[in-house]
């Protein structure tokens, strides 16, 4: 107690001094061991420090080069990616511009593919400026990119630009893109030539053959038919009357007047537009199909599958039908059949009504719409649009469940599964 730190330190030194004489007897041997240990520790340490410092300098240079190389690569990747975006924008607009011109001027394209190429690259049609393509061509994009300061020298080019039908509702724009990225010092350089593709949807593009054949009065944008079938017979039974209405499975439906009730037993049921039942008891309505096996389940399955709620009771076939094809003339839906009937988008831009392309599509005219704008209707001509507009007389017959003006021939009816409903 009372020992200061200084005196304590002295005390420790003193103790060590007192211990030395005990170690002096092996002093020579100990020194060699210490020296050896020190050398063994020092050599790897020195080597490690030497190599580490040397390696660090190399690492610094490598990091810079690596970043620069990565930046070049990223600039190239960025351009590549943006080019596909530019193709998509330019392609979509080219179809809009082409259909716009055909419809507005009433002038068919002489070679749709070539004219679309002209739009894509130069933004012109027949060497005339088009507003829709203004600042939206592939060449415009190239000019912009090469004019930007991206930190590197950029060289761009393309070749083998092609446009072809992919399917009825999409076209494929393909090109060979050449990219060249060089750093300022010319030490590093990326040269790439690679194919690029963009799928362009033609949905919403107006079908030129409607406008061309109606003096520009009728517009018909292309919309793909959304249902899984055109017409399907759901059940057969014993029937009376023809009627068309939305399905209900609720016998207590509060708004029955425009609906077709599908139920197990129709006995005593009234108030509905039509009734379909599994038992043979007739309902108290004038339009029905009874004795229809498994009608409830089948109808539920079909309507849920298609999402189309309307049903048609046909007395001639004593059957309940689902006819989403009814919506085709009103909604303007287009169907692509595996056989590829009807003109494809390129042929339509050329005003062709022959339908030789494998990516063809079909739709129906809407005679009511024609009449509403004062156009006369070819009374017995088939309602398949490209045939309806033909100068040849192609007669068809009415179809039960379809609009009264609708006409179709046997060949086309089979494709739409309407043969059994034809008024022959």
């Amino acid at each position, binding site marked *: 107690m009372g020992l200061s730190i200084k005196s304590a330190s002295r005390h420790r030194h003193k103790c060590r001094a007192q211990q030395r004489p005990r170690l002096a007897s092996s002093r020579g041997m100990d*020194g060699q061991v*210490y*020296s050896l240990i*020190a050398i063994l*520790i*020092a050599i790897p*340490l*020195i080597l*490690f*420090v030497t190599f*580490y*410092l040397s390696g*660090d300098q190399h*690492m*610094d240079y490598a*990091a*810079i080069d*690596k*970043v620069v190389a*990565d*930046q070049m690569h*990223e600039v190239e990747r*960025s*351009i590549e*990616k*943006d080019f596909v*975006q*530019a193709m*998509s*924008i330019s392609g*979509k*607009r080219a179809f*809009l*511009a082409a259909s*716009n*011109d055909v*419809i*507005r*001027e*009433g002038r068919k394209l002489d070679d749709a593919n070539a004219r679309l190429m002209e739009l894509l690259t130069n933004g012109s049609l027949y060497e005339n400026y088009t*507003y*829709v393509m203004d*600042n*939206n061509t592939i060449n*415009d*994009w190239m000019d*912009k*990119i090469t004019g*930007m300061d*991206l930190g590197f020298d950029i060289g761009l080019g393309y070749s083998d630009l092609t446009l072809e039908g992919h399917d009825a509702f999409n076209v494929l724009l393909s090109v060979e893109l050449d990219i060249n990225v060089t750093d300022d010092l010319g030490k590093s350089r990326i040269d790439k030539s690679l194919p690029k593709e963009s799928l362009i949807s033609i949905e*919403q*593009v107006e079908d030129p053959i409607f406008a061309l054949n109606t*003096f*520009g*009065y009728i*517009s018909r*944008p292309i919309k793909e038919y959304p249902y899984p079938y055109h017409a399907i017979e759901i059940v057969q039974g014993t029937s009376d009357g023809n009627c068309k209405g939305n399905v209900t499975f609720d016998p207590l439906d509060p708004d029955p007047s425009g609906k077709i009730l599908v139920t197990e037993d129709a006995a005593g049921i009234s108030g509905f537009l039509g009734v379909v039942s599994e038992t043979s008891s007739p309902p108290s309505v004038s339009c029905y199909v009874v004795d229809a096996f498994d009608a409830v389940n089948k109808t539920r399955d079909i309507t849920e599958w298609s999402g189309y709620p309307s049903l048609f009771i046909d007395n001639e076939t004593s059957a309940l039908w689902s006819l989403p094809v009814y919506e085709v003339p009103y909604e303007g839906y287009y169907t692509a059949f595996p056989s590829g009937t009807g003109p494809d988008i390129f042929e339509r831009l050329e005003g062709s009504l022959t339908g030789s392309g494998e990516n063809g599509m079909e739709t129906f005219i809407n005679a009511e719409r024609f009449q509403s*704008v*004062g*156009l006369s209707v070819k009374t017995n001509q088939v309602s398949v649009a490209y045939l309806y507009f033909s100068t040849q007389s192609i007669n068809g017959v009415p179809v039960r469940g379809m609009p009264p003006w609708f006409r179709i021939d046997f060949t086309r009816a089979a494709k739409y599964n309407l043969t059994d409903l034809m008024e022959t």
Partner: protein
Amino acid sequence: MTLDAIIAITLLLSLALFIGAISITYYSPDLKYERLYYMGKDLLLLVENADMDQLSDFPVIDYYISQGVITTDQMENSLLEVVGSLWASNNATLQDYATNITGEILNETLPEKYGYEVLMDGSRIFRKEGTGGEDFISRFSTIVSGFELGKPVSGFVARAWATKISKNTTDVITFDIEGAGNDGGDLKITKHFTLNTTAIESATFYVSIHYTNLDSLQVNGNEISGDISWLHSDYFWGMGTAAFGTVDVTDYVQNGIHPGMRLEVTYKTEEIKEATETVKERIYFDNIVSEENGWRNSGAWAMVSFHIPENSTIRNVTMHLRGEDIEDIAWRDDVRIYYKDQLYDTFNPPPSGIADVSYNFTDEATEGTNWILVQLNYRISSSWWGEYDDFTGDGDTVIYSDPINDPDGSSYIDIEYGMDEERLRYGYIDIGLSEIAGGSPEITKTFPVDFEDKELIKSFVHVAQLFSYIVRVRVRPQGQSWTQIFESPSGRVIPSSIYVDPNYFDISVPNDIEVREMNAGYNILPETSLEYRIWIPSSVGYGDVNETLQGALDDAVARLNETLGKYAVATTIAKETYSVSGVPSMWGPAVLEVRVWG
């Protein structure tokens, strides 16, 4: 100090140097930059490649979906596309959304000590301050087309066209020369015409008649004779008065006549003209009843003119005539029919006094102005003092026509011809206009008309005169020579409507029209006019990309109205617009940049 201590100290110093060297080289600026660079790259790749579906677990994304800021259509869009479109809107509220989305997602990816900033074209979308200072900032950027501040990333374009046009158009209903002559008794003429109209803007009746007493002149049962403003008149002793005047009959038009009598009606119509290659037209004679008046005999005559455009294929021109109360005067041939300047047929009526005959003039018809002249109990005879009107009817003489109640039994001319396809205009509507010659009565009247480069469909000169003999019509595009269009083959053969084919005009320059009376004593009146129809473009194509559907439609309608201009006001175009959604534009490219420090 012992050697051991020296060695020990050396070893300790070496160790300290080693640790110090490691520490110094660990904070190498290049390596630090590299680290920051790759952090920035990771951030940017995330922004570029992560789509909304993948990010929907973030509360901010979920919230903005529920608020409709991010729509279901955008769920497959990348974070860049969503944030970029909000930024490009240049709307402060939407740009705040972009800030919130960017911050909440990217904050999860970097340690707290690092700060970073996301910019589009140099404008900041989000910035987070780190705790590690800003000694080194790494930058990483990419380009993206379709984004530009203040420009819609995608939107709607629309076009518009007019199918039902409410247009102000002028029609001229002409009265070809007809009557009972100056030796006849009372004359009653009834003319039926139909206008496809929703509203009459104005209707002016130009009256050009030769009469002794004008007892009555009615339009739809309304007496207008007292309202006529007589502009020109001449009285000849013993021959009555020849007079020309106008009267406003706007309120009366519900939906023996000299050249120039016509009714000009300007009206609104929603008529849709179906362009067709075949033109069929039936022109009815006016119902003319000439009454015997004491010693004055009756007699009816009428000229009906019609036109066939040049380069047409004439398919049919037939006339049905029903004349009643025709006297059979010996050696007179009381029914006389002319086709243009040729006396085509003459005969005496059957005992019933009714001549119900049909003629096929297809072979006689020519392009341009054609006319048929019918005379019943009347002809022009000559004596030692000259030609005179020679009437022989006893009681009434009638050219029968009642188009409303008895169309097929009436007197009429059926015309059918095929038009040159080039005359059909796709995407255009036609507008009728009329130019009055003006000035003062003169023997040769020349007046200009400017079609303002609008394509001409057809035109007619309506000659107004008190008395007429032989009229000549010529036209001349300014700077070119005159072309004669028409000259009466004989006296009094002056159609009220003289067809002038558009090919005679040059629509790019003003044109002069000259109407000349070959008899020096008669004048051409200032009310002589040119009626013409021109094509107006009736559709506009796609315009600018608009952020909203309504904006695109409004733009299309405005452009359509501008195109129709002064000629027409499109009123029913709601169903005649078509819009395309999701139309992209090649704005930019914008530069998306990520800066990281710490």
